[in-house]
């Protein structure tokens, strides 16, 4: 039956595929991320994320983690090691905290994924002291997690789609915001009218999740 919770199995293969799709999406959107970051940051978000995801994909192939948590752990570790600026520590810690929350399970349910991604955004908030509305990746990630949590009883596809829609909405909502955290906060009102690059890459993370359920 289509559209039930058993339609997609969230196993190690799914997580590996998800990260592969994220890497390709970062590659396709690299210039866009750099353009957004040039307006309110230091113009390196695209190239940093690209370098990090390439390293993560390489490590995933060579280390071949055996469970979903392993995929997140390897990805997070490579991002911390390879990505400069704020993105490395923030995304790296998010993936590692999410891995910790998943635990050594061969298959993950949607509620478990939601809980792990909640742990991920908590790590981001702890490191960056960011609240919703500060114009950061939290503005896309937090609503996505909330959507995933409330959709958790439906199918994987519909839950992922709800999370992606919420992330995209949160990403677009950063445009009028005045940055209160990160380099962009030095610009004051001049940060208004620009979409946050971190919220944009978080949007890509959830878009890749939807792609992986197809």
């Amino acid at each position, binding site marked *: 039956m289509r559209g039930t919770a058993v339609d997609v199995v969230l196993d190690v293969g799914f997580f590996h595929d998800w990260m592969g799709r994220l890497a390709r999406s970062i590659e396709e959107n690299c210039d866009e991320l750099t353009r957004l970051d040039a307006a309110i940051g230091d113009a390196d978000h695209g190239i940093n994320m690209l370098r990090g995801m390439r390293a993560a994909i390489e490590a995933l192939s060579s280390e071949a983690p055996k469970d979903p948590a392993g995929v997140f752990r390897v990805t997070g570790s490579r991002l911390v090691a390879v990505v400069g600026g*704020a993105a490395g520590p923030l995304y790296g810690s998010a993936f590692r905290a999410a891995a910790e929350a998943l635990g050594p399970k061969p298959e993950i349910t949607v509620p478990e994924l939601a809980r792990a991604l909640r742990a991920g955004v908590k790590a981001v908030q702890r490191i960056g002291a960011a609240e919703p509305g500060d114009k950061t990746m939290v503005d896309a990630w937090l609503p996505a997690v909330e959507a995933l949590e409330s959709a958790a009883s439906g199918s994987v596809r519909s839950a992922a789609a709800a999370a992606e829609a919420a992330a995209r909405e949160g990403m677009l909502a950063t445009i009028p915001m005045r940055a209160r955290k990160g380099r962009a906060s030095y610009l004051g009102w001049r940060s208004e009218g620009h979409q946050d690059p971190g919220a944009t890459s978080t949007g890509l993370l959830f878009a890749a999740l939807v792609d992986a359920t197809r």
Partner: protein
Amino acid sequence: MIQSVDRAIRILLALQDEGVLGVSELASRLGLAKGTVHGLLQTLAAHSLVEQDSTSGKYMLGPALLVMGNVYLNSHDLRVRSLRWVASLSESTGLAVRLGVLVWPDVVIIHHVGPKDASVPVSEVGLSMPAHATALGKALLAFHPERRRILSEEPLARLTGQTVTDPDRLNEELDEVRASGVAFEDQEAVVGEASVAGAIFDRSGQAVGAVALVVPADDRGVDPSHIAAIRDTARGISRELGAVTWPG
């Protein structure tokens, strides 16, 4: 204080904070009558300190301020004498270098050279960074005669999970900076960035500015060679300004 001058300055500061404001918005922000604000704006506009947007009728800062800003930069003794030192520090380390002065509660960047590996050069000149969260600010606060008072006036903003927001803890740290002349910060202003700064003194022994090396926090962070380099640079600039001693 001359009231009208103060009001005119507050108009300029409001436009700096908000970008574009109409007469009514300015009047309510400043608690003044619209007519008063209008008169002040007319006077400022006559000197090109503000200008009016022809379509919206709202006001913004004017080009005369850029001229003034450039005169400030080019006649600033500390900055002019630091240029050569900053260039050589960035050349030898490949890292970004900032020169700043204290405009509490911020540090204003008056000279900046980006890191060697920057894909797109981004200038930080004219940016304000929170003093309590930056090495530049700590280097200057440490030698501020009234630092205990100013640090207790307003709550210190949390900018990352690492920002020191407890005034007592910051004061303890600043006592050490006073002894060594060198201040540190590890991802306290933005995630991923650490910095080390040295205070710069003039002939009278007053700390008039600070110079900082910006170190990516993802490497091994600030190392002894960075500290030695910043100390040499800060001491060298201080000597040029006529300072006879330097801490440490």
